[in-house]
């Protein structure tokens, strides 16, 4: 049971405030913000309480999404709901930011009104909600020259228009109704890697959490079929085919997915509702089909002048693409962050098979030989487009009935680093 819901900006501005039960005192927002900012550490804990008032909050899009509740309510439910709410707001407003929430506050009030009544969650399905929501979203996307670059000379199709722009999926779902938005569907395979590589170069831990998300802008779509790799297998014992098996440890599906063709042909059947939904989640531990994408060869030493020398050689072990563009990245940058005592080395682009080296010289007051032990670990954060660590691929994507008019189907793969740590 939720008594109030409010959304605060990171500076503490009230963006949305709704009191469902009128039980708790008025200044809950102020109390919450005081508590959040009073705490030390980089992020406050999820649950805080003040005089019988319990705050549960999540951070999404740089905003605080807060619910006040009673002590015996389920944290799983409330956190899941707040996450779902932010996803709904993102679906309806196009993107999630302080600005978009501010511009669409009427829409968000409407959403909250339909989703929660008297503190009880009624529904969060965008299929149900779209019948009730009347307000149009105000899109906050600024005019950008990049939009024009898709149109070639004399309106001819250019190379770029065959690739979905990264902003394509950040638009409100409702606009597809009147503004004649394109009827599109995006199927994203997103994987998050968490890897620990020991100082001896050994792989100590490698976990992959993956999900298939469908983001649907089709006004009517009765059924969709997603075909996965034929040799996709679950668990250690099961092995299909003789090729390079694509194996995961555990899989769970959204309840609307029908699996009657899954066992035989690895086909997922579902009727996507508008907006974004998670179709399938899977995980794989400790048994990557290929070597980890990045390797680091560090040398740490102290030079005669008492400076700390870090010589880092970073290699990307992905297969090189046929079209290798720039081999040296001129737009790299490095920065020393004194408050987090870290050197940040930014590499905008890194193609497979490439190797980069950097030499950092650091003046450290009172550097001793023992201090060298303190250096490390190296944390990598990256995004690998068009690649999945497990090797999962989508063979085909079929929609039925066949969509009238121009409809576009996009399949995108991306692997993120959840935590990629290399010890020194």
């Amino acid at each position, binding site marked *: 049971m939720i008594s109030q819901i409010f959304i605060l900006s990171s500076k503490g501005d009230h963006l949305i405030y709704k009191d469902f039960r009128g039980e708790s005192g008025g200044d809950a927002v102020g109390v919450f913000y005081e508590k959040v900012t009073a705490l030390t*550490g980089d*992020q406050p804990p999820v649950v805080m309480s003040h005089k019988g008032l319990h705050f549960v909050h999540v951070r999404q899009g740089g905003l605080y999404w807060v619910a006040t509740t009673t002590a015996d309510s389920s944290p799983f439910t409330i956190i*899941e709901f707040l*996450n779902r709410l932010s996803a709904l707001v993102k679906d309806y407003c196009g993107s999630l930011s302080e600005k978009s929430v501010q511009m669409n506050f009427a829409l968000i009030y409407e959403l909250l009104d339909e989703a929660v009544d008297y503190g009880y*969650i009624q529904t969060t399905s965008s299929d149900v909600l779209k019948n009730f929501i009347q307000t149009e979203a105000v899109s906050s996307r600024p005019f950008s020259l990049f939009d024009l670059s898709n149109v070639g000379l004399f309106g001819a199709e250019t190379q770029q228009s065959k690739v979905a722009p990264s902003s394509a999926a950040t638009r409100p779902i409702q606009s597809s109704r009147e503004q004649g938005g394109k009827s599109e569907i995006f199927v994203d395979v997103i994987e998050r890697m968490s890897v620990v590589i020991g100082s001896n170069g050994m792989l100590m831990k490698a*976990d992959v959490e993956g999900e298939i998300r469908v983001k649907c802008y089709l006004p009517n779509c009765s059924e969709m079929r997603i075909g996965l790799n034929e040799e996709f297998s679950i668990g250690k014992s099961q092995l299909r085919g003789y090729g390079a098996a694509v194996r995961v440890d555990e899989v769970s599906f959204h309840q609307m997915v029908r699996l009657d063709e899954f066992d035989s042909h690895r086909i997922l059947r579902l009727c996507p509702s508008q907006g974004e939904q998670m179709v399938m989640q899977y995980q794989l531990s400790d048994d990557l089909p290929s070597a980890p994408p990045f390797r680091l060869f560090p040398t740490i030493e102290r030079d005669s002048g008492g400076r700390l020398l870090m010589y880092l050689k970073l290699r990307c072990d992905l297969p090189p693409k046929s079209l290798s563009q720039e081999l040296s990245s001129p737009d790299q940058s490095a920065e020393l962050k004194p408050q987090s005592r870290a050197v940040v080395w930014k590499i905008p682009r890194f193609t497979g098979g490439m190797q980069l080296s950097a030499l950092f010289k650091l003046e450290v007051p009172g550097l001793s030989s023992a201090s060298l032990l303190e250096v490390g670990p190296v944390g990598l954060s990256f995004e690998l487009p068009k690649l999945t660590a497990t090797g999962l691929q989508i063979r085909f994507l079929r929609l039925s009935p066949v969509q009238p008019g121009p409809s576009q189907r996009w399949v995108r793969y991306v692997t993120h680093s959840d935590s990629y740590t290399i*010890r020194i």
Partner: protein
Amino acid sequence: MPYLGGEETVRELRRALSNPNVQSDQLRYRNTILKVIRAMSQGVDMSGLFSEMVKACATVDVVQKKLVYVFLCSYAALNPELSLLVINTLRKDCQDPNPMVRSLALRNMTNLRLPSLVEYVEQPLAAGLRDRAACVRRVAVLGWAKLHNLQASSEIDAAVVNELYSLLRDPDPVVMVNCLRALEEILKDEGGVAINKPITHHLLNRLKECDIWGQCQVLRVLQRYRPQSEDELFDILSLLDASLVSPHPPIMAATLSLFLSLCSGQPAVSLAALERVRGPLLAACGSGSREMRFTALCHIQLLLRSIPGLMGAHYKRFFCGYAEPAYIKQRKMQVLVELVNDENVAMLLDELKGYCTDVNAETAQAAITAIGRIGRSYSDRCLEILTGLLGLKQDHITSAVVQTMRDLVWVCPQCSDTVCFALEGCEETLQDSQGRQALLWLLGVYGERVSSAPYTLEVFIDGVRSEASLGVKMELLTATMRLFLCRPAETQDMLGRLLHYCIEEETDMCVRDQALLYYRLLHCGIEETRKVLQGRRSDPSLGVLIGRPAEPVSQWARSFNTLEPLRQGSIETESVSRGSPEHTMFDPKPNADLSNTLDCSRIEKVHSDGDGRCSDSSADILASSVAAPLSLSLFPALSPEEFERLWLQQLALHAEQGNEMEKGYIVNNTSQRFSLSRSFPFIGQDLWLTRARRPAEKDEEAGKEDFVWMEECVRCPTIPRCSPQSLQAAMQLVNIQTLAFTPPQTLPWRVYLYTHTCLDDAPHSTLILGELLYTGEEPQKAEVHKGSADGGVGAEGIEDEQARQGMEATADGGQEAVKVTLRQQPRDDKALKGFLSILTTVLHTLSSERA
């Protein structure tokens, strides 16, 4: 916070709202209202516009209606009279052909929260319950709950309650769930909605139709149901099994909560359910949302309280991510400490070592504390890491390491040598008072082994004038006094100076009083002082030594899936002993699961009997098979070191069997979990046989030692699962002292114990050392062997007996048995037999109690 210029805004908006030109233009009208709402949610007081907004309510534009309602519901309480005007519009809307308008009107009518309007609301609400549109019924059902809470005194019509009950069969699942919610609130005084068998089964059957939130609500309400038979219980459980492994964490958690409450009488089923949710919980731990990860982690900690080994194989899932916030990292470390075992300890320590140099000082300290906790089981490896960290010469790290070492030495005194060695020279980097206090404590207690101790203290004493921390001063006094007792020549002078300063110049009363106390104590003589100051160097209670005992599920089942577990824990890390360890209080846990048959009254008897001798009568009850009266006694007490010496002494004679004896293993084990790698190498029976006879032969030759080994199997399947406290208490009732335990549920499970026996007709008492071992395997072939000193039973005889016993054992089917190994010195068969039967009785009693 009201914005500046609020007055101005209100006036401007009022002008716009009452402008007929604006009112006629729908879009402009709506935009003006939008501005009002925006200002309202920014915190500007807009209540002055109430009457204008009431007028704006009468419109055909649904969006505008919704916006106005948001406004009205916020300010209705301030303007009850004006709100009456809205009611007419709302009642008219309730007749609207559009169901959306009907539900909107109904919802806002009840959201106004005005007791004066109740009479106008009841009729539309009653009609709403029978509306043909589901969305109106949903609102109407909850409307009654709102009405009830608005006027708690007014009785809701029994007819309405009946109607709500009948709406539980509504085709719309949300209406059904809302009925549950409304009835829960309306019938709160009667204990909520009636959960009987038909309702339960109806709800369970429709569970699949509901969405996540509905399912959670239904599962929660069902927690009150008590199945009438075991069959029904298991039917329900099998029905819910799919939800238990649901990919949605809320459903998984709600289902587990329900499982635990349904199976509160069946611990085995509860434990099986916990095993089942391991997968989904681990998945939630890797969820993309940090908050969800955190919640899952906190709940995993709860589960680990009952099944410590539950996640042992998945320890890598709890490695900290680079960018994770500190609160998740600290929780993960707390979990990691629980998961440590022989296979993963090396990897785990390596990982934790990496966190010790974290930029965030709190995370680094938490990692060091975690290493210290693991050090209770694996002291050598951990001390090596801790000593290495001192080399970094970082003040926050050194401080944490010294505190950790102090805590470690308190529970594992055998580490003191390494610690004393490491302490040299670290006082230079210590800055904070906590760390210096820890250092002073160590110097005081182990002063005789740290050669530089007096010099270090002298530095502290010279700087005492500028010392700000009260704790450091008090600790300094005690440490100097203690050092004076063991190294008087070096310390006398500085002690005099310190006492003089504290008594004459110190302004703080506590410090002054303590100094005076010590001063007077010294007047009483050195022996008196020694008695007062040289207390324990290590933890006297076994409670903290044995690691965490497995708690029954019922201990935490109530707080599962509430906010409780998310708020604890941070406190737990705090309490890891601040200040001197001997000052921390250890409250003995009540032995809830202790057998009633081992009544406490017997303790009194034992104690009244003089120095702890078990009276004949009680021994008789417990060991009726013993012919001669046998007394057990704990005196003279046997220290763990002594036990180790005696136990290993004879085994060491047989080193030729290739069993590397790891010295110091019992001492290690007394204080913590057993490490498997250090476990006894000769569990195998064949080895045992030879050993059983060999010492006797030696004995004859040497004639020095007179002792006997004996081994026996006792069938008491649940003993290894019973809590160490209750086992210890039960043993103490019959004067058997337990020295060391493995935590429950671990395999092999061991207990070491000792006692002295005294037969009434025997001239001397004998010492019995014993080990209980449970390997978790089927009882092996040999069940009973007895090696006697005179070699009266030949090898063949033993083998025969062994075979026979083995047959019996297999015939009995894989009953679990605990192997008892005893060593008696000097030899006295009768006493040994008597002791064994007492022990067996105790084990059986405890075991039946558990079953």
